[in-house]
């Protein structure tokens, strides 16, 4: 199941020899893993686009997007356990660090199937869609359902996701230019929709529980993000900058910022 693609261009910025992402392994990734999608999507033009401009793509895309296929190597058991970790981070007994393995001379992270702490993109996408559908049900039960309202909620959800990613990226940036792949941050940002979906479900079942559930899920999401970002910073930063008070204040700000974000995303306002 784990196709050793030999590149894992995603987790750059590891301690140790990072260097530039080598072009050929990444080219492999495009032709190998994402090729099903790309082959189907580009169809007849695939050869033209991928063949002639592969160098362009390799040099530019790899700067922004690590291999997205890495984030979808999941299975049922991983999804179940990861949901438990996201929603109740206090119960996670083990450590929070990701398992690394030397791959082709560079250290890279193991994919989500093998490592509960690895981020994935399946859960965020599904959680986002669940959030939209539950929002639709909430609209409907109040009698205010229109498809346009649902589209507005979709856009609002996307904006919330974007703000969350911005927050995480800003945190990393202001703490010293730590290199972490963008898709990792997108994944961590998208995990908020699991807690949010739970909140909306609770509101559907019993409306007076809404505030309690919302406060608790936003707090738990804050804790989850705190532990995750702490681990990310810990592995990436130079040793003399660890445990600075600036770091702690910024992390605290990140946790506190979860509350207004959840409140804003949970507000069902027929546009």
């Amino acid at each position, binding site marked *: *199941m784990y*196709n050793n693609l030999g590149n894992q261009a995603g987790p750059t910025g590891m301690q140790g020899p990072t260097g530039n992402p080598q072009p050929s392994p990444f080219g492999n990734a495009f032709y*190998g*893993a994402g*090729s*099903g*999608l790309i082959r*189907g*999507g580009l169809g007849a033009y695939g050869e033209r686009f991928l063949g002639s401009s592969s160098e362009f793509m390799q040099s530019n895309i790899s700067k922004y997007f690590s291999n*997205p*296929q890495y984030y*979808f*190597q*999941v*299975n*049922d058991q991983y*999804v179940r356990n990861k949901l438990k970790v996201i929603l109740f981070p206090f119960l996670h007994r083990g450590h929070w660090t990701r398992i690394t393995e030397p791959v082709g001379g560079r250290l890279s992270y193991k994919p989500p199937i093998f490592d509960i702490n690895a981020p994935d*993109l*399946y859960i965020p*996408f*599904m959680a986002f*869609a*669940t959030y*939209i*559908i539950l929002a*639709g*049900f909430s*609209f*409907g039960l109040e009698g205010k*359902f229109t*498809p346009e309202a*649902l589209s507005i909620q979709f856009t609002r959800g996307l904006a919330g996701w974007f703000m969350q990613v911005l927050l995480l990226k800003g945190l990393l940036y202001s703490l010293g230019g730590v290199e972490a792949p963008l898709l990792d941050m997108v994944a961590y940002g998208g995990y908020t929709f699991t807690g949010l979906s739970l909140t909306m479900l609770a509101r559907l079942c019993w409306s007076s529980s809404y505030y309690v559930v919302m406060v608790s899920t936003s707090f738990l999401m804050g804790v989850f993000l705190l532990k995750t970002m702490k681990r990310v910073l810990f592995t990436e930063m130079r040793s003399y900058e660890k445990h600075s008070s600036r770091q702690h204040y910024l992390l605290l700000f990140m946790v506190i910022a979860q509350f207004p974000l959840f409140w804003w995303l949970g507000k069902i306002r027929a546009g």
Partner: protein
Amino acid sequence: MAKEFAVRPVIFPSSTGNPNVPQHSRHPGAASAPPFQPPRPTAPGPANPSIPFMSFDVGAASASSSFSAPVFASVSTGGGGHFSVPGSFEDEPPLLEELGINTRQIWRKTLSILNPFRVKPDLHEDADLSGPFLFLMAFGLFQLLAGKFHFGIILGWVTVAALFLYVVFNMLAGRNGNLDLYRCLSLVGYCMLPMVILSAASLFVPHGGVLIFSMAAVFVLWSTRVCTGLLVELASGGDEHRGLIAYACCLVYLLFSLLIIF
């Protein structure tokens, strides 16, 4: 292959035993060239020069494999080929065949969806969009009867849903995922049948009651089961992710049930 001129001479049907048959059924090595043969570059691909590109025979170009055979059969008898000149209108293939709509196949596929417990993937091997189109029109019509004008929304949402499923399935399946968008759209459209039935039934059920919710739950599960079964059987790489794909399908059909219930 003999040298070809840019413009073929027009040869009207005469007493010659070689009627004007369309290009692709021309007997190999025929002496007289058929009329209106567009200039063709050196025959690419297959060595048989008597199968040029289809310019007139729309039916065969878009037909599913199940009835390209009769088209060939009817033409190769040489009885009266189909021409493109007027005056031979009755010899053209039937419209539905030309359009590639095989009603028998659509009916068979529809019947196979009706049974949620036994999935027949071989019927759905060749994807087509005419069945889904009919279902979506029926869906829109039933919604219209309920007072909601949702045609454009249904079209848009089906597209987005098919795209979503396509991305999720191929990403999960990884290297050996070979679902293509056309087939995905076709499957999503065919598995809309329970939703169409639900929208018809919702016309007679009181709005907002428990009955409509429970019916919707049943129909969504029906759709999900059929769609997951077909997706996993028809495209490779999906079997170890059955539950994950089932959840994605469930979300798609829940979205459409929202349109029906509220």
